[in-house]
């Protein structure tokens, strides 16, 4: 799933990878792949993550991981960092999710009474990146569907998600709702339909596998 999601990144893109599963996407890109990674705390051109003994104490990503520069990296303040996001210079962001609705609403920052650490830069990424894709498990730990007709949790942004990568399938959000596009090895269409709490349009004929 993470390897499949990495194919979402086209050469030359400016990309922000959210905390969690999305940060692993970079491990599936060739070392010389032309992409500019952005992080909210003020850097473009993120290089490989470093272990503590080789880390620079002043160089982290927004998740707190110690990262490195590459030729062409730039540093800037937090206002400039979000100017990049809000002005449309971010081609793609990959985010985690608690819930995604059939109209592309995203909920990924708050579970009232359980989890409310604050939204950080998530709203601006979800609302303003030119393309928003979600990487998530298809269901939560209790087996509840994360893909639903409507979100029940507080929203991060409305109608922002274009595509969802899960451990079961790749699903697009269209004007007509969820569309099954590709399916994971060892999973049946019936499994995906059963694990999705909204109508899922299934095209005729065999689906590509990943």
């Amino acid at each position: 799933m993470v390897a499949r999601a990495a194919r979402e990144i086209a050469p030359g893109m400016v990309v922000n990878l959210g905390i969690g599963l999305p940060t692993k996407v970079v491990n599936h890109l060739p070392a010389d792949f032309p992409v500019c990674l952005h992080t909210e705390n003020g850097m473009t051109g993120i290089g490989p993550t470093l272990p503590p003994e080789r880390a620079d104490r002043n160089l982290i990503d927004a998740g707190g991981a110690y990262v490195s520069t590459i030729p062409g990296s730039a540093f800037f303040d937090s206002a400039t960092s979000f100017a990049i996001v809000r002005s449309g210079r971010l081609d793609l962001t990959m985010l985690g999710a608690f819930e995604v609705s059939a109209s592309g609403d995203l909920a990924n920052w708050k579970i009232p009474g359980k989890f409310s650490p604050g939204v950080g830069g998530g709203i601006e990424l979800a609302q303003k990146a030119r393309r928003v894709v979600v990487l998530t498990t298809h269901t939560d730990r209790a087996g509840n569907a994360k893909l639903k007709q409507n979100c029940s949790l507080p929203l991060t942004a409305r109608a922002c998600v274009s595509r969802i990568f899960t451990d079961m399938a790749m699903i697009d959000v269209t004007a007509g709702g969820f569309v099954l596009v590709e399916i994971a090895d060892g999973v049946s269409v019936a499994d995906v339909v059963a694990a999705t709490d909204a109508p899922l349009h299934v095209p005729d004929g065999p689906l590509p596998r990943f």
Partner: protein
Amino acid sequence: MKLSDKRCSIQDAISAIKDNDTVMVGGFGVPGTPIALIHALVAHGARNLTLIKNDANEPGMGIDHLLQSGQVARLITTHLGLNSGAIALMNSGRLEVEFNAQGILAERIRAGGAGIKAILSDIGVGTELADGKQVVELQGKPYLVEPALRADVALIHADRADSFGNLAYVATARNFNPLMAMAADRVIAEAERVLPLGQFDADEVHTPGVFVDHVTELGELSEEYAVVRR
């Protein structure tokens, strides 16, 4: 002509902070967090403070010392996810927390530093972050009024300074520091190196010294500034 010398001790710089003050604190995680100034503020003891900081650092680090000492009544921030102690204080009602979208917090501070009263933004329209905010319609679309933020005091961490208070930052330790350095009535900067006047290339200055009131040179950095081993 000659530029004034703003160097002073950490204690002298911090001594002007009063109970009930609003204090901006630079930093995103450890990088750029003015740890020595924070410890001096804990020792100083001013209470009922409002802090403005991107995040609450981690337990036992940065502004967590001020939260745990009970000096902070209110925190304006974007994310507390790495500080379970801060979340516990918030959930128990002992700490009032106002969450902002991160780039909006940055712009509210920038506006405060630029003499602008508020910004208009569509970030968070249709979500609970819009609750209670004034809405203005512009060219047929709704925008939230996000009031500018200023503080009584800003605590800044710089890599290098000169005695006039010109500042420069390194790597991701820049973050909110240059914005906050423009947005407070009294700006206190700790710097890893304070250069003699004339030794700081004018083209390398990130924050002009006119914004800065006090400069204090850090000696050997404490372990809290070092790489965090989790």
